[in-house]
């Protein structure tokens, strides 16, 4: 029917809906594959009452404008990097907190919808006010440190400069380790490392490998010190316009896609780590629990408390209590 994005035509009962899902990466990435999974499950479970059209590769919207498009219901579903939400919902910087997770296995529990951190994300009032509903959290993975020197202790980072995503929390993290931090676009990282504009960087293995960063970095410390993830969101007004049974279908499909994404991401990061090891250009250093704790002690709780006002004092207290209980 005319003007047919979002709700389609048809009688009240057999009404059909269409979801546009836009993202900025290729279909082969964990995000791209999870998007396909979401489409497949939604279309199957809704018996064709919902169709999902995926627009990958920024072909419809890019990093800079997809959130505006979502808020105006020009697209219905997105999965932007969590950092993209910090201007609308600063509390989502909770995901940037160093050592929020100890291993990949912790992720589902620490940020489940019922956990303290999960509530801050899934029930964010700031996002709700902007007509955004969170349906899930998709992983890129846990970050590792890389540079051209061995990094066994936080002291060994002193004086080094690291590339970060634009984030105050990440800047404070590196400064607490005695290093300096420079925000740079992801696409520029390889060149910056190669030319020595920065000494090191932090990323999951899959990003390090796909950008060939390991070819210009002699050392990686397997620190698992931080998280990079995507927030799966839907336009809330559109979601509410769905009949109750379809709302359930969409949320369950999102859950299934999220679980699938977590698997794919973990596998991909392991494969990337193997590739890096086989390339032979980079030494990967495993930390003992004590050594990792030394990195952690420099930033937890100090950096967490530094951003308590932004993230929410209660949430930070709850997270610290959780940490101590673990």
């Amino acid at each position: 029917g005319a003007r047919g994005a979002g709700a389609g035509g048809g009688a009240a009962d057999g009404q059909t809906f269409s979801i546009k899902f836009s993202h900025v990466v290729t279909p082969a990435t964990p995000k791209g594959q999870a998007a396909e999974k979401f489409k497949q499950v939604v279309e199957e479970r809704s018996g064709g009452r919902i169709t999902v059209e995926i627009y990958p590769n920024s072909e419809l919207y890019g990093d800079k404008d997809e959130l505006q498009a979502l808020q105006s219901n020009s697209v219905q579903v997105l999965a932007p990097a969590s950092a993209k939400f910090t201007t609308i919902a600063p509390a989502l910087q909770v995901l940037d907190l160093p050592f929020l997770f100890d291993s990949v296995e912790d992720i589902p529990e620490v940020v489940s919808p019922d956990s303290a951190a999960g509530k801050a994300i899934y029930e964010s009032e700031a996002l709700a006010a902007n007509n955004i509903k969170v349906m899930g959290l998709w992983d890129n993975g846990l970050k590792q440190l890389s540079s051209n020197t061995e990094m066994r202790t936080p002291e060994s980072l002193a004086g080094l400069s690291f590339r970060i995503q634009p984030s105050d929390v990440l800047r404070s993290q590196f400064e607490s380790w005695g290093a300096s931090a420079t925000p740079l676009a992801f696409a520029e990282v390889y060149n910056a490392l190669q030319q020595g504009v920065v000494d090191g960087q932090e990323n999951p293995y899959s990003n390090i490998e796909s950008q060939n960063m390991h070819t210009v970095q002699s050392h990686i410390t397997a620190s698992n010190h931080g998280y990079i993830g995507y927030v799966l969101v839907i336009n809330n007004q559109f979601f509410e316009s769905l009949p109750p049974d379809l709302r359930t279908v969409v949320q369950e499909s999102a859950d299934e896609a999220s679980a699938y994404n977590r698997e794919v991401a973990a596998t991909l990061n392991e494969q990337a780590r193997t590739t890096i090891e086989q390339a032979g250009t980079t030494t990967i250093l495993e930390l003992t629990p004590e050594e990792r704790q030394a990195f952690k002690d420099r930033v937890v709780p100090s950096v967490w408390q530094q951003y308590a006002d932004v993230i929410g004092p209660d949430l930070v207290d709850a997270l610290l209590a959780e940490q101590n209980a673990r």
Partner: protein
Amino acid sequence: MPATDGGDPPVVPVAGTGAAMQRFDRVLTRVENVLAASTLGLATIIAVGAVLLRYLFGIFLFWSEEAIIYLVIYSTFLGAVITLRHGEHVNVDIFGAFLRKRGRRVVGTIAAAVTVVYLAVVGVFAWLLLFEPFSTSTTTPSLKLPLWVVEAAVPIGFTLMLLRALEILVRTARGIEAFPEAGRSLLEVEADVAGVEAGDIERTRRTPGDPPAPRPDDPGGGDR
């Protein structure tokens, strides 16, 4: 026309416009020119500064990229007003060469009317864009400016263009030369950019051994 002067056309009065209108026109022209040029200039200074600081002193201006983009966007939408004022927006004038004066006037009027419609409708929604919730609640990542501040380049540019387009429509429909800078062709724009003086082009035209060159205002060339 001095090649170093990109702007201020002599104001050709439209019948029925008063001195106040002309004054308004002159002031507006100046404002458009100064803003379009200075935003581009500032963007250039920032871009050069950012590169030099980075390579000479290792200093990153984390806000430079955003500032450059937004300044150039302002320069584009303000510059488009000047382009419109001079009738320099490129079009496909297939029939122009075959039409007589009357026919050209009809085609010109249609094109001007379409332009007015476009600028008016998109202009209205451009103003409304500034009041969208995300325009007021989102801030730009580095400069932390409210989004509507930078988006405002669009409605401002469209509104100024609409004023010019209306003027052109009235002139064309009445059969008055549409553009205050009569006969300014793409050639003169490019000559301006390339720093070529009008006199040099005149010399190119008047090379010997050819049929007599048409007068500059002869539309037969169809170059606009």
